[in-house]
């Protein structure tokens, strides 16, 4: 099993991966506080991008409502902590099933009643918007006035309760991103991965090749939703405040998908590269603007827009397929 995971991986790729990993694990030793928060954001988007990519890149189902799963994970774990003192890792045992159920609900509605393509995407937006409005009025989570986690000055990091300094969140997200990468690679190389790609490529042909497309699309949504909700839990404990208006907002869903699109939909490195490029460059831009004393609200959105335009025009498959050819690592084309 483990040996097969590294099958068909060139030496060059392994070396590069090793260097990247060592660099990422060592980064907090040299990074400033500010840089660390940027890296946390990058990892956060790399991780969720990987989860979103399972649905879109592998199984070909466009979700524009992934903020739903982030929000459900965040709110469930935060509410359990605030109300009952249940820590995030135990909270996950509830948060993940809640998000998985939401995903299964959307999937069932769409796939059972043959809602496909853009209509599926609209359904995912609709449910996320529904949750946003619903949570605005849900008093158990303090509605639109926001749910706050108690904060204090932390002198040490409590990993069990996720109370501590940014560096702890950095490592949690780094491990999660690495695991998500390995998990997605294993999925892609398994029977289920082949079936997903077949469905993405041509659903009718996939069915006539014997694939129960309903079942495999459901599995994709549920895995993607579950993985995404974990990021939501981390989000809640990192930011310590949750507002439905922010967490479930459609702009959050869009932010999630930009990374994989820029990096390369359907590739394993795409979401990671995309997160580095977009978040890294936009944060640099904002820092540079601030240093110059220029105040341009919305500069980040404009920057995202430009990036997206450039990628769509010049590299429609994303940056990674192009980059991997340039540096001589061709990810096996799927």
């Amino acid at each position, binding site marked *: 099993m483990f040996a097969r995971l590294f099958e068909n991986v060139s030496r060059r790729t392994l070396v590069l991966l090793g260097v990247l990993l060592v660099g990422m694990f060592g980064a907090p030793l040299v990074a400033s506080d500010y840089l660390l928060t940027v890296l946390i954001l990058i990892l956060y988007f790399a991780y969720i991008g990987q989860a979103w990519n399972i649905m879109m890149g592998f199984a070909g189902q466009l979700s524009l409502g992934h903020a739903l799963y982030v929000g459900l994970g965040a709110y469930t774990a935060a509410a359990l902590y605030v109300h009952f003192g249940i820590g995030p890792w135990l909270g996950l045992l509830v948060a993940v099933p809640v998000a998985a159920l939401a995903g299964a609900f959307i999937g069932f509605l769409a796939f059972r009643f043959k809602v496909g393509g853009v209509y599926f995407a609209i359904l995912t937006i609709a449910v996320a918007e529904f949750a946003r409005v619903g949570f605005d009025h849900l008093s158990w989570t303090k509605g639109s006035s926001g749910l706050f986690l108690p904060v204090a000055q932390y002198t040490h990091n409590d990993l069990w309760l996720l109370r501590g300094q940014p560096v702890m969140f950095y490592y949690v997200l780094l491990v999660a991103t690495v695991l998500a990468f390995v998990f997605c690679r294993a999925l892609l190389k398994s029977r289920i991965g082949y079936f997903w790609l077949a469905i993405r490529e041509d659903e*009718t042909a996939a069915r006539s090749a014997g694939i129960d497309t309903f079942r495999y699309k459901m599995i994709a949504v549920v895995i993607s939703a579950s993985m995404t909700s974990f990021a939501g839990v981390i989000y809640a404990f990192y930011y310590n405040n949750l507002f439905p208006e922010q967490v479930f907002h459609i702009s959050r869903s869009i932010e999630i998908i930009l990374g994989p699109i820029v990096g390369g939909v359907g590739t394993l490195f795409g979401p990671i590269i995309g997160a580095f490029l977009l978040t890294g460059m936009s944060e640099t831009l904002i820092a540079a603007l601030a240093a110059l004393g220029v105040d341009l609200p919305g500069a980040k959105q404009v920057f995202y827009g430009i990036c997206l335009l450039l990628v769509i025009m010049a590299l429609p498959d994303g940056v990674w397929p192009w980059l991997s050819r340039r540096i001589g690592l061709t990810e096996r084309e799927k």
Partner: protein
Amino acid sequence: MSALLKVEGISKRFRGLLAVDRLSFEVPEGGIFAVIGPNGAGKTTLFNMIAGVYAPDGGAISFAGERIEGLAPDRICRRGIGRTFQIVRPFPALSVEDNVIVGALMHRHDVVDARTHAHEVLRKLDLYDKRGQRASSLTLPDRKRLEVARSLATDPKLLLLDEVMAGLRPTETDRIVSILRELNRDSGLTILLIEHVMRAVMALAGRILVLHHGASIAEGQPAEVVRDQAVIDSYLGAEDI
């Protein structure tokens, strides 16, 4: 020989159009059975009913002694009926090999086993050397054979071929004909084909059914059918002009 596929009085209506009208026939196990007829005769509709795309409005379809009409296409495939599409539908961004592996995974859970099986099938269809290419980069004759390969990899007992020779040059047609004949002879694969290319039909089929306006106008040995006056009037005669 017993019947592997038994079609009994099936009909399909699209609004006012009766596409298939109480059609019955039997495909013997191990045989090659051809359905011919002019455009719009209902051949593809018939195929789609057997393959589970449409449920017939009436009648019964039995495969290996079990009723299958109205089952979903994936379940029909898992029962042992493979199909190709008239307008080819390979998985374009996947490699030739991966296209066939998808089919091979139907009855295999391990990807390595499936790859081994896919290679065998690719060799049979002369696609082994092109296994690394993207399916979208193949020429039409190769794509047609890829469709057959993907379907064959699911280990069907019955293969439904929807005009796999259409648009091919005579040499390509002969190549597919010889491949199909070999498959039929060596592995006892039963084949039901829809075909316009009479050269291929005459070379392959043990039995021919002629459809016209959704109904059978003749059925029998190839030599009998081509001499049948009704067939010449409605279909074959037109080709000679």
